[in-house]
């Protein structure tokens, strides 16, 4: 899908976390190493000209291929990478513009930690469930894996995602990775939290539970019990393999559709209670100031949002004619019902095609066939979910929440296509 270079300038604006602010330089080392591996038996295309192939390039039909490998790796010609923001409390962002479909490769899944990535020996792992239960219980990782398994595809998004694009002075040279890279989608496997809570005899008058991680921040969040009976899980698998350390190895809480911070990684303890615990992350952070001298507490659900991933900054369209506008849409409230595309700055809208599968609380890939006439255009996408919620403009959000509100930055993104084919971020007027 991608049609030009891979150097991605970062955002210069923050979004609630330390923003990346330097060029991600693409190492050519892997490329060179890959080429050198077969350089001992260079065969060129030969005398026959044609096909538009450089004469110096290797002819793979004249060289025995490589053997199978224990662990595969990407083509040395493919070098996607996450954008980093340095510190142990920092983040890394998924390169949306270099991905196809809806799944995020595990090694490109975004990260947001509150005190770095802990190293946990799975044989020493324990999950403690206690509080308002009949039987306080310790589960080993093997214990967790003996329960009936569930596996589903879900997005997870940091509720600070998109802050840099949700400002009237947003940097126009911002890729979807820089702007909304704190979103990823995986197949998550594990045990339904309801199964575990039944196993320990959760009291019917327990209304909240505390989820606590074993990172250096001992990150903790209060979660309503209704989420446990709905679709919460303790996940130990991601895209078919064990969850990566950055994603909570060996086990994490996973709360489909809710702000990423609540899906506590490296989870070690669940305490059932009849009240929320008011942890630092749910009060002084991850609460949303709104107009009238108030702030929303426990703003869990991620509302509908969509993101064009082609064409976007730093793409450059090379000719007029057919351009497939593509991206994804998601909502924490169920399934995406529709995605609409505008190429004239929001004057008119038309339905995009939703690519199956369209799953609840999961990214849905959309596509729109656009016939570019070569003149300046202003591309936008907006998601409509099954509740009838229509992805709002930034103005709609700030009108009701105020310009200083934080988190849940799901306003419509826009991309200006210039007559020379360059593309820049430009939100709706």
């Amino acid at each position, binding site marked *: 899908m991608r049609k030009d270079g891979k150097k991605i300038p970062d955002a210069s604006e923050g979004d609630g976390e330390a923003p990346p602010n330097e060029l991600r330089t693409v190492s050519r080392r892997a490329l060179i190493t890959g080429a050198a591996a077969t350089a001992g038996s260079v065969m060129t295309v030969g005398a026959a000209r044609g096909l538009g192939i450089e004469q110096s390039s290797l002819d793979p039909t004249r060289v025995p291929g490589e053997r199978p490998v224990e662990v595969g790796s990407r083509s040395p010609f493919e070098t996607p990478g996450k954008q980093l923001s340095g510190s142990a409390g920092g983040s890394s962002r998924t390169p949306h513009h270099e991905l196809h479909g809806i799944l995020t490769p595990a090694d490109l899944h975004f990260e947001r930690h509150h*005190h770095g990535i802990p190293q946990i020996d799975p044989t020493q792992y324990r999950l*403690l469930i*206690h509080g308002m239960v009949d*039987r*306080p219980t*310790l589960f*080993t990782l093997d*214990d967790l894996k*003996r329960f*009936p398994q569930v596996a589903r595809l879900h997005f997870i998004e940091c509720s600070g995602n998109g802050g840099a694009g949700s400002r009237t002075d947003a940097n126009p040279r911002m890729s979807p990775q820089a702007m909304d890279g704190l979103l990823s989608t995986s197949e998550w496997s594990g045990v339904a939290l*309801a*199964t575990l809570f*039944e*196993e320990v005899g959760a009291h*019917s*008058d327990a*209304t909240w539970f*505390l989820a*606590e991680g074993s990172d*250096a921040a*001992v990150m903790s969040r209060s979660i*309503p*019990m*209704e*989420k446990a*009976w*709905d*679709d919460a*899980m303790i996940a130990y698998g991601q895209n078919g393999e064990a969850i990566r350390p950055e994603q909570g190895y060996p086990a994490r809480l996973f709360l489909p559709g*809710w702000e990423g911070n609540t899906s506590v990684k490296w989870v*070690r*303890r669940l305490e059932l209670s*009849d*009240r*929320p615990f*008011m*942890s*630092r992350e749910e*009060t*002084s952070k991850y609460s949303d100031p709104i107009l009238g*001298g*108030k*702030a*929303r*507490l426990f*703003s*869990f*659900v991620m*509302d509908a949002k969509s993101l064009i991933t082609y064409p976007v900054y730093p793409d450059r369209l090379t000719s007029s004619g057919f351009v497939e506008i593509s991206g994804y849409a998601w909502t924490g409230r*169920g*399934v995406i019902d529709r995605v609409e595309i505008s190429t004239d700055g929001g004057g008119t809208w038309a339905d995009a095609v939703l690519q199956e599968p369209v799953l*609840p609380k999961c990214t849905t890939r959309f596509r729109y066939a656009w016939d570019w006439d070569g003149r300046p255009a202003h591309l936008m996408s907006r998601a409509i*979910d099954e*509740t*009838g*919620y229509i992805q709002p403009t930034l103005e709609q959000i700030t009108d*009701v929440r*105020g*310009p*200083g509100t934080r988190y849940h930055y799901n306003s419509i993104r826009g991309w200006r296509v210039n007559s020379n084919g360059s593309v820049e971020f430009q939100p709706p007027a």
Partner: protein
Amino acid sequence: MRSSSRYGLRAHHLAVFVSALFSVWACGVNEGGPEDPGEPTLSWTNPGSSAAPFPSGQGGRYGFGSPASVTDIAVWDIDISPNGAGLPSGGSTVTEGLKVYQKKCMACHGPTGTEGPFDVLAGRVPGDEFQFAEDRSLRSTVGSYWPFATTLFDYTRRAMPFDFPGSLSDEEVYGVVGAMLFLNDLLPEDAVVDSATVAEIIMPARDRFIPDDRTGGPIIR
């Protein structure tokens, strides 16, 4: 493609916990649960759970896991509730706390808690107004934004100082909490700090927090 039709209903969940679904604390959310209590909820279906739940023995349990003793629980049960539950015995003073602060906290948070370079901890707004939505430049300090002092104890003990997390003694945590409250003009410099102090102090922002009223549908909130 409605989600509710794609997954089975665990009827006994609803039967047993229907009261829990609607008796969450006032700040509870409706979004995570079924939009319509009359409809089947989006729920996991485990093998065999539709007709006869698989674990027919052991009181309907699988029997995996081992009992956690009081000692096991005590090792990890470090959370402090807003009513003070979980606060340890003992205490300290603001004066002692300022010494700990200068030694272990000041490098990141500044001599008076206002200088950074990391989180700005101290500072009040005139009249304790709460204009964070109106004014993006306001810093959410302990004195202007944090609703509970118990959170301060809980977080400081579990996660601070950043380079040696969890290394402070309970006495040191009481002192540092007292120092932070003093730096926010919420305690006098000669104050003693103990569980009663931390549980009973009314923080300026205590009543500023409201439930999430977003519900999906056409209205933007």
